[in-house]
């Protein structure tokens, strides 16, 4: 059998690449190697609808098992690629065996950063389905309190789920504000207020130095009684395989705008890919469904001989209590921001500009603004800060070219 496309990693990026190869009529073999015992599933609901009990676990799977068979996608579960032999174009699997490739797509993702505190073996993390199932049960069983270390997206979603389950919750964040790496101070303040209003204790500038089975000890000596500690303090991209294969690695696996690594037969996509991003104004590594899916499509186009550079608008979302927060674009380098809507009414968007050009839009409970923002950003439609803050200006019409 002729070697075809081998995809390492069964997350959203890997699955999308496999599916797209088939919808685009690729006839060769497609092999999807998943390190977990589960077929590809969605991660976003694990910290949202699944954890809050709105969604059953069997609904997170991205495809039925029959789908893989019908589409001739060779699904290998519970095996890891332990080595890439780039010269011979084959990968070695854990437990033995090799798979040859014509093209290799690394969708190897990232892993949770471990808490650098003593007693950290008492800490739970959330990334995989199995971890989510354990965490949900442990939240249900918690009697004294739940401490969440890290006030980023995952930490705050877990904190909200635990609070909604009626638990006493403390969020311990080392930075002076929440989600500091990803959002502006306006949104940090909004979510700080939201969590505190819901009865969560939020500690900023707070560092956990020790985790005991019944307490968390902070740097300032404070002791917080808990029976469950969860940490969400970021991820580390899985670059080791690529590095060992001689590929260039920086913050992630280095790729060009077509997702090609420094080996022309190997691509990298999703959380692990350090890529040129026009919206970041330089190289970036993004951890999101959008980035996973769009980079998968980009790599597949290149493999099928129809390369088109990666130019998709970044977007993310998080749900915390009744706040649906959607981000379009990357706001990091903005020099001006304006508000549309009302923060008190919990329905607003913040539009970010750099030198008068629209850079990003953060929306809370304004999904229409979010979709419109993505269209404006994708098309590069000019928008002034005055128009953005003026509710009488129909942004949808502007986005539609009218």
């Amino acid at each position, binding site marked *: 059998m002729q070697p075809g496309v081998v995809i390492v990693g069964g997350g959203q990026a890997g699955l999308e690449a496999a599916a797209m190869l088939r919808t685009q009529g690729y006839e060769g073999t497609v092999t999807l190697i998943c390190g977990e015992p589960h077929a590809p599933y969605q991660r976003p609901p694990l910290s949202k609808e699944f954890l809050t009990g709105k969604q059953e676990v069997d609904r997170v799977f991205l495809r039925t098992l029959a789908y893989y068979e019908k589409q001739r996608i060779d699904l290998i579960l519970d095996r890891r690629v332990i080595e890439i032999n780039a010269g011979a174009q084959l990968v070695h699997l854990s437990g033995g065996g090799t798979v040859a490739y014509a093209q290799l797509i690394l969708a190897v993702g990232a892993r949770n950063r471990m808490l650098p505190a003593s007693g950290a073996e008492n800490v739970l993390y959330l990334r995989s389905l199995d971890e989510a199932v354990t965490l949900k049960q442990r939240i249900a069983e918690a009697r004294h309190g739940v401490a969440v270390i890290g006030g980023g997206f995952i930490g705050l979603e877990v904190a909200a789920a635990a609070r909604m389950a009626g638990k006493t919750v403390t969020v311990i964040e080392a930075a002076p504000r929440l989600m500091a790496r990803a959002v502006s101070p306006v949104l940090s303040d909004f979510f700080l207020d939201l969590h505190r209003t819901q009865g969560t204790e939020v500690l900023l500038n707070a560092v956990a130095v020790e985790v005991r089975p019944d307490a968390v000890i902070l740097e300032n000596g404070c002791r917080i009684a808990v029976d469950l500690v969860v940490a969400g303090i970021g991820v580390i991209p899985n670059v080791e395989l690529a590095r060992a294969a001689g590929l260039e690695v920086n913050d992630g696996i280095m790729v060009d705008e077509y997702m090609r690594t420094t080996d022309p037969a190997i691509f990298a996509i999703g959380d692990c890919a350090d890529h040129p991003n026009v919206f970041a104004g330089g190289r970036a590594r993004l951890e999101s469904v959008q980035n996973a899916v769009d980079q998968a499509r980009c790599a597949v186009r290149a493999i099928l001989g129809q390369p088109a550079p990666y130019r998709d608008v970044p977007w993310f979302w998080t749900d915390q209590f009744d706040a649906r927060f959607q981000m379009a674009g990357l706001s990091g380098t903005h020099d001006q921001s304006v508000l549309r809507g009302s923060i008190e009414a919990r329905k607003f968007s913040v539009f970010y500009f750099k030198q008068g050009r629209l850079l990003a839009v953060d929306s809370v409970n304004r*999904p229409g603004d979010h979709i419109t923002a993505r269209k404006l950003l994708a098309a590069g439609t000019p928008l002034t800060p005055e128009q953005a803050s003026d509710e009488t200006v129909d942004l949808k019409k502007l986005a539609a070219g009218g």
Partner: protein
Amino acid sequence: MPNVTYISHTGETTTIDVPMGTTVMENAVKNGIEGIVAECGGAMLCATCHVYVDPAFVDKLDPIGEEQDEMLGATAAERKPNSRLSCQIRMKPELEGLIVRMPDRQY
């Protein structure tokens, strides 16, 4: 098990079983039916699972909430009175035999 028929914009017809309580969107995606994208996985934030519901079933659907209404205003293909986001159509006995048509584009 109740079934749902999906008709693509080119007329390709697929009928699948859709378990009670699950959505028209998730069953389409899981079975690889093209024409429903659902980038967000059913979180109602991408408007890429837009369908036109067969008129015979429109009255049996749950009312369009404020959020869905806002999202339907942002679909890629034209919004019609029978436009819905398929992630918001949850299977129930009255929808047995449901027919939905997919628009020519989702984004």
